[in-house]
């Protein structure tokens, strides 16, 4: 059974059908690409999947469970984590605190214990910190753990956002244009990171990307979205060679 199964998903904003009849099926362990020209509705799909928008039609199943209409924070607990096109870090928190916030529900203690630093506080905080450092180490960010996250270089901020998403131990990771604004070196490094986390954490990834080199380099399958509708889907190489897809891209870009 597919890990993510999207059936006839749709949403309209005041009469404008932003996403229509969207279907998607991702198997466990796949690295899947969602591509399409600007304004095709890719980010809207992400927002629908993560509950930022409530779909006006269709269903979303994760691992066989219907998660349609769940709130964002519930969907995260259901097993989907994401990053954002325009990086959304907790800017006034340190790098490690960004990750620790994401570990929020792993070690619990009461507010009373929080206010007086008693009881389970010390033990839980110690474990959280160790765990956060472990995650940062995977992303080579452990040496910067005390830096304010807004002071990180751009590429590192992207990485930290992925690290933060991974800290919630999702089954499915959604990456929204992870290579946007990166130079070729940073992109190459990012590709390594993505492959690494997929292998290390045994996770399924869905990513939106404009950089075709990145998509063809790491995605096994892609879905092409145009004007809110699926234009093509299937193996990356085949889809990218599809004349209709090329037309959609060229027609949009030029």
């Amino acid at each position: 059974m597919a890990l993510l199964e999207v059936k006839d998903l749709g949403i309209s904003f005041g009469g404008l059908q932003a996403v229509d009849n969207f279907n998607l099926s991702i198997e466990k362990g796949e690295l899947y690409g969602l591509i399409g020209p600007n304004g095709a509705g890719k980010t809207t799909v992400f927002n629908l999947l993560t509950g930022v928008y409530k779909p006006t039609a269709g269903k979303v199943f994760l691992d066989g469970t219907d998660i349609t209409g769940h709130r964002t924070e519930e969907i995260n607990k259901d097993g989907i984590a994401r990053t954002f096109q325009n990086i959304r870090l907790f800017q006034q928190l340190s790098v490690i605190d960004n990750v620790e916030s994401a570990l929020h529900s792993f070690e619990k203690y009461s507010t009373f214990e929080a206010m007086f630093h008693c009881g389970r506080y010390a033990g839980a905080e110690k474990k959280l910190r160790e765990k956060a450092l472990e995650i940062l180490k995977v992303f080579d960010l452990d040496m910067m753990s005390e830096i304010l996250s807004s002071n990180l270089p751009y590429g590192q901020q992207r990485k930290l956002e992925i690290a933060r998403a991974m800290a919630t131990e999702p089954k499915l990771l959604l990456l929204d244009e992870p290579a946007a604004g990166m130079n070729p070196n940073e992109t190459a490094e990012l590709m390594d990171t993505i492959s690494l986390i997929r292998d290390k954490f045994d996770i399924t990834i869905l990513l939106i990307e404009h950089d075709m080199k990145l998509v063809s380099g790491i995605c096994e399958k892609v879905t092409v979205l145009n004007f809110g509708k699926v234009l093509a889907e299937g193996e990356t190489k085949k889809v990218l060679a599809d004349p209709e897809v090329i037309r959609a891209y060229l027609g949009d870009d030029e």
Partner: protein
Amino acid sequence: MMSFLTSFVNGLSLGSIYAIIALGYTMVYGIAKMLNFAHGDFIMVGCYIIFIFSSNLGLNPVAAILIAIVLCTLLGITTERVAYRPLRNAASPLAVLITAIGVSYFLENLALLIFGADTKSFTSVVPWAGISLFGGSLQIQGITIVTILVSLLILIFLQLFVHKTREGQAMLAVSQDRGAAMLMGIDVNKTITLTFAIGSALAAVAGALLASAYPSLTPYTGAMPGIKAFVAAVLGGIGSIPGAMIGGLVLGIIEILSRTYISSQLADAIVFGILVVVLIVRPTGILGKNIQEKV
């Protein structure tokens, strides 16, 4: 029935004064994106200027109002230039809010020093006694009629100004996206200065009407009407010119009606309660645009 009508008219009168003040508030908020807490005190300054020229120096009230408008405009521009502009791009929007509070303290205490704490009685700038309807059972004062008319005129003027003139379009652009407006070649500084000029001129007009309808003048005259008008602006949807008008009228009418029919002691709680209820139902006020954060 007649008592209801009377209350309604009284509410309309109070409401249109709130509306004029709220129009100034909402302009400044919409374009400069700051809560000018000192706006109410600009009104007080306007009142004192009219008082000096009209009551003390015996000038024609209309001339006194014109002088007040000019001086208040200057005061508004100066305040913006000296106290607010340096903080426009400060790291926290609270910085300019606190400064506005400082300006408010400053104006009140300066007036206290110059004019003393004694109440001054204001001579109405509208000598007309008003009209009497239904054989005298419903009386509408001249000042009430003038206030309502003036507030409508100002509303129409502002709407035309904003939508039909270059400067007005520039204001709209600045209010929507300051950065983009700047890229389009709009002089943001000039536009905001103009906004403060208009807002302060309106404060002077509001002062003339407020003090004529409720003729007592102290250094704190402007404070509470200022806050109520702020509430009215929020109620109507802050940044929206027709919203400020509606908010002001609604607030004034509710205030008077709840005092008449519910409790004069709890009227303030009711007025603020209405604000809370409206904002819960419509989180950006009656005519406010709902701006959703883009993800």
